[in-house]
């Protein structure tokens, strides 16, 4: 029962129909076009168009899409699952992982691992449901050229090996047949945008893509800041574009049930006489993401800090980036060449000796 006021008709037509006393779209569709034009005070063409638009029933953005008023209880029952990051401590701090249906921002200086975490999520979203994952697909929008497909293939292979190493029941063994490096790469859709106009256009077309590919559960934009940090004649234009973009992304996250993740850069700002590192894109942009993670160095370790979240408390967790991907901070023995040693070999031996509890959460490597 859609009310006339929420239907996708042009404002002048809506006013005429409301004045004539029509309340719901069903009433408009029940009449013949000639009747509608007489009773609604419209011309015959207008009446025909009205009925055609209502029949198309296009679920347009911003027009009462995702249900007119659910109760909070219904929303709680619908609480989406999360995408694990393969860093068990970070997953715990996030309450399971990166939440589906919400927007998450990753900030950090270059080289912290933002792209690595994004790629890891693109792989982890595809973990089959019997292993505790979402069995979904991912979309990666690349604006910087930081996607090197060999790296994605390495991470995919490591994830497949990780799942194969666990004890499996029949259902899991079956699922593993389709869980290969090729299938992981095949369900990761890539888009490349070279400037902010292309990015805006791409985001405009994404909802249609998500409708055609309903299995997509993750949308990554790496990085969102890069195309917007070139010189803008008028900064207020940039603010307006960014706020429009934020609304589109938030809407996409909840309407299409995807986790939207984007990366932001850091910039130096003079605050109280001191230069501080703050996330780029301005103060008002800070409100766009539901959750913000800051990746930074502290005392020689990489830390991920949650510094904005409606449900989790602010905390910091150590992580590392290895050949396999984004992982817990293992025992980093730095050799003279400065190479970060893979924590995988140590964790694998731990996994073999620890008992399998039979729970369906994906077993991530325990950090020390």
């Amino acid at each position, binding site marked *: 029962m859609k009310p006339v006021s929420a239907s*996708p*008709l*042009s*404002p*002048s037509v809506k006013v005429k129909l409301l004045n004539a006393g029509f309340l719901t779209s069903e009433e408009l569709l029940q009449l013949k076009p000639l009747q509608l034009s007489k009773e609604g005070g419209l011309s015959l063409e207008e009446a025909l168009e009205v009925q055609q638009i209502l029949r198309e029933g*296009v679920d*347009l953005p*911003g*027009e009462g899409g995702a249900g007119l008023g659910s109760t909070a209880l219904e929303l709680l029952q619908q609480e989406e699952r999360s995408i694990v990051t393969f860093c068990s401590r970070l997953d715990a701090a996030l309450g399971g992982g990166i939440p589906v249906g919400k927007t998450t921002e990753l900030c950090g*200086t*270059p*080289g*912290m691992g933002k792209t*690595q975490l994004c790629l890891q999520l693109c792989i982890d979203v595809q973990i089959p449901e019997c292993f505790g994952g979402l069995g979904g697909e991912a*979309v990666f929008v690349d604006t*910087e*050229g*930081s996607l*090197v*497909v*060999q*790296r*994605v*293939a390495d991470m995919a292979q490591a994830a497949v090996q990780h799942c194969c190493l666990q004890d499996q029941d029949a259902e899991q063994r079956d699922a593993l047949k389709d869980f290969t490096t090729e299938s*992981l*790469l*095949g369900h*990761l*859709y*890539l*888009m490349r*945008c070279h400037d902010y106009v*292309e990015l*805006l*256009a*791409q985001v*405009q*077309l994404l909802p249609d*893509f998500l409708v055609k590919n309903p299995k997509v559960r993750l949308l990554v934009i790496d990085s969102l800041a*890069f195309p917007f*940090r*070139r*010189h803008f004649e008028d900064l207020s*234009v940039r603010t307006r*574009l960014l706020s*429009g973009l934020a609304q589109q992304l938030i809407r996409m996250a909840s309407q299409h049930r995807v986790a939207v993740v984007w990366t932001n*850069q*850091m*910039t*130096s700002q003079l605050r109280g006489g001191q230069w501080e*590192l703050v996330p780029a894109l301005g103060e008002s942009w800070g409100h766009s993401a539901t959750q913000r993670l800051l990746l*930074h*160095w502290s005392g*020689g370790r990489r830390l991920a800090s949650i510094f904005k979240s409606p449900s989790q408390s602010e905390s910091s967790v150590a992580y590392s980036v290895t*050949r396999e991907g984004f992982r817990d901070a293992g025992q980093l023995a*730095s050799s003279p*060449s*400065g*190479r*970060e040693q893979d924590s995988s070999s140590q964790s694998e031996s731990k996994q073999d000796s620890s008992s399998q509890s039979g729970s369906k959460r994906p077993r991530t490597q325990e950090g020390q």
Partner: protein
Amino acid sequence: MSIEQLELNPRIIKAVNNANIGVARDILKFSGPDLQRLTRLSASDVHHLQTAVAALFCKKTPVSALQLYRGECPEWDCGLRVSLGCPVLDGVLRGGLLPWGLTELAGPSGAGKSQLAMQLCLSVQYPAQYGGLGSGALYICTEDSFPIRRLKQLQNEQPSLRSDVPPDVVSSICFSDNIYVEHAADLGALMACVSQRVPVLLAQGRVRLLVVDSVAALFRSEFQADQGLERSRHLTAFATALHKLSASYQLPILCVNQVTDVMEGDSNHDAGLRPVDSKVVPALGMAWANQVMVRLMVTRLPGAVSMGTQSSARRRLEVVFAPHLARDSCLFGVWREGTRGLPSPPTQDASS
């Protein structure tokens, strides 16, 4: 691109023209409700309009990572790397320079940056099977004049450095013919070179590598300490121009950079921008670091190494950050025939 050329109902086009919005790309800058208000069109009409305009700017269909991996999208990733001319050095980079994007090579003076840059200009000229791109290089000098004699020496010694390449292939390449050298004495000249001279050479297919030696020199000299914002703006404009070139022609760009000392107070601010135990950080701060995709550093270490009858100061090449590389490093020396990495363990004739 004007509105008339979109495939839309003439009624919609008329409404858009009446609203005086301008060119097609401006439509993307408005939200749905804003457009409804300006054009008095219905929501579904506005949706059709936005989709048509967006399709103009997003002509490429999304590809899957598998297609990229299998080499089915050469315009995105041709799967090649630009070799540094030495297998040990290439090992640190997992094959060589990425054939797109900005790669930075930073280090103190005398560390070997220009040597590596010149060696790249030679190795890019080999065919793809030997780690090159089969094309020339453009070298932009902003500091001293181009070391032409050293280039000639390197060119003559190529058969000795590249023993992996058949001698007839090496002798068939006329190296100095394919290296274009430009001098830029100030920022204006640098921007002019990058926006005019380089695209001409690229369009003719004569170069597939751009070297800027060095980025820091002009930006540090032309701006005072308190002109930080001004410098940032110019730096961003320069980097944007480079990125545009790199994207249009799949061009790898090597930017040589100087270093500054790490200040005591902000050891955490730039911690990720330099190797962990380094006392120096690449110049030009966060504004430049955000523009760079791969950051490499070279340093000079105490001691010397020897190879045959030659002796060289010990140096190290290190990956600071890269989207596809671990923080690897290797030792290397600068020899008569060029820059060569030292397979570990290196030979030393002086204790470190």
